[in-house]
């Protein structure tokens, strides 16, 4: 029981984290029609910034806030110098150019921070276990991730659906020429959206940093997961990304936790313990393949153009 609740929460937490990453990706994709493989690099940079600033200021929160600002600025710089010129080009060009950016960022990090990973230690008040149900404790930090991510999701929803900027963003997604003709500075809007996506990725990175080590290439595996999510959810749909992210987070976490035992029921011990990790890593891709075969445009396709 304890294990089930704990893994369930872990799945939720991982799913929400994935949502932060996928939200930026799907916004950029849905609105600018840009495939950004370097999104995972922004996630990595968020983590590195946080580890550096936290060590520098001596405060986790202050470091996290500064890292958030730094990724936002980095995203804007990236958009203005490089990615802006890719809008309207072939998707293949996007894949290639941002693939180059991944190489660049990984190498730059190796140059600046060295090949060894960094650690981002948590302040004491975030490490205490919190009782959530009678007899069941859960780490405060993971709970904090869940709360922050849910809050951000809510803000994002309200921001996109209820504010003027959000209205412009949605309008830009459905018809970019028209909104430009109506006198909206579409370039600025795009830069803003990209910066927002970068900050979300940075937030995901810096929140994940204390749980995993901060290392080169940390953004790549999770980027693929984020892509799987937006493809399952339907490209450009934030609602789809949210549901798919929770779903994928759950499947991944629960699969890793319980699949080995399940397999042991049917297979011999040795075979099960070798097959289980591979199988649980595959589960998500299997899910995506099934979804795409049944619904080639994802579960919640964004409004057609």
């Amino acid at each position: 029981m304890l294990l089930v609740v704990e893994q369930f929460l872990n799945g939720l937490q991982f799913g929400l984290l994935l949502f932060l990453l996928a939200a930026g990706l799907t916004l950029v994709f849905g609105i600018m029609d840009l495939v950004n493989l370097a999104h995972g690099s922004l996630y990595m940079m968020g983590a590195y910034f946080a580890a550096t600033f936290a060590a520098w200021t001596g405060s986790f929160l202050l470091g996290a806030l500064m890292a958030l600002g730094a990724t936002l600025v980095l995203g804007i710089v990236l958009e203005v110098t490089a990615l802006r010129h890719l809008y309207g080009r072939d998707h293949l060009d996007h894949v290639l150019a941002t693939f180059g950016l991944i190489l660049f960022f990984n190498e730059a990090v190796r140059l600046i921070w060295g090949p060894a990973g960094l650690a981002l230690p948590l302040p004491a008040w975030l490490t205490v276990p919190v009782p959530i149900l009678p007899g069941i404790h859960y780490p405060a930090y993971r709970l904090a991730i869940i709360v922050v991510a849910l809050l951000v999701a809510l803000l994002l929803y309200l921001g996109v659906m209820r504010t003027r900027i959000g209205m412009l963003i949605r309008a830009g997604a459905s018809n970019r020429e028209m909104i430009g003709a109506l006198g909206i500075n579409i370039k600025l809007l795009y830069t803003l959206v990209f910066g927002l996506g970068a900050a979300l990725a940075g937030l995901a990175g810096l929140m994940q940093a204390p749980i995993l080590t901060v290392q080169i290439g940390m953004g790549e595996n999770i980027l693929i997961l984020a892509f799987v999510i937006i493809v399952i959810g339907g490209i450009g749909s934030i609602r789809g990304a949210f549901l798919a992210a929770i779903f994928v987070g759950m499947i991944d976490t629960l699969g890793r936790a319980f699949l080995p035992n399940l397999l042991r029921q049917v297979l011999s011990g040795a075979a099960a313990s070798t097959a289980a990790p591979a199988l649980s890593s595959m589960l998500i891709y299997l899910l995506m393949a099934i979804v795409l075969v049944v619904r080639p445009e994802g579960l919640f396709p964004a409004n057609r153009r």
Partner: protein
Amino acid sequence: MKAFTVSKAVTVLLLAGLVLLPLYSQLSGNIFILTLFTRIIILALAAASLNLIMGFGGMMSFGHAAYLGIGGYAVGMLAQEGIGSGFIQFPVALAASAIYALVIGALSLRTRGVYFIMITLAFAQMAYYVASGLARYGGDDGLTIYKRSDFSGLIDLGNRVQFYYLCLACLFGVIFLIWRIVNSRFGLVLQGLRSNEQRMQAIGFPAKRYQLVCFVISGTMCGLAGALLANNTDFISPAVMYWTRSGDLMVMVILGGMGTLFGPVMGAVVFLLLEELLSQITEYWALIMGPLLLLIVLFGRGGIMGALGRAGRG
């Protein structure tokens, strides 16, 4: 006789250079260059196979490295089980790649555009994790192949020069095949589908069937590259199938010029030589390589072949 062009001249020079390379290596005693170029030729073969579906078929596969792994693992696993004959290993490698391509192609071709890019990527990642789970064959750490494929005295893969020429012959064979395919009725239908699928379907061509056949041919060719690659490195590991390797192959195709016959060869040679050169200059070669790719995308439309074509027109 068609007119002389710069791109043709450069292509001929490149091919002549590839043919004469072992001679240079023997004369100068530079063995490293032969090893390097064997690898380049094998990856050029893989890039050429990717170009068939990407450049001519309009199918953007982001999971082509999976075939490198499948072909390689076919060789490695059979060698591990004591079946060393190349006459068994290579056909098995090709067949396994073809079957994999058939299955994932049938599923992936239901989608299009970015979804197609992503689903091929997902399948390749699945293959990657399957390979990581093969505990009997080394799992994550990979599998050392102690004996290269044995062609019972016909050709000795242990001999560097013979192996080099085998790879080169395979590359030329595949390019010849692609040339024939592209200019056949089948190839013309395929290129028609690339430019306007709806219209082709309206004329009455079963689009998916044509694309699937092309997908399988391409996968099989890349499986051949995988079998050669495993023989070249005497080693096969899941890393061969990792998604960045698929990205490398895409880069080679686009760098060289998508949809041209010799573009992928050019791309592979330039990309891998650049990688080699930059890594000799600085440990942080990717720091230069990354922005270079960005610049190529931004300013170099049509890749090297495109640039040569423009140079030819003056």
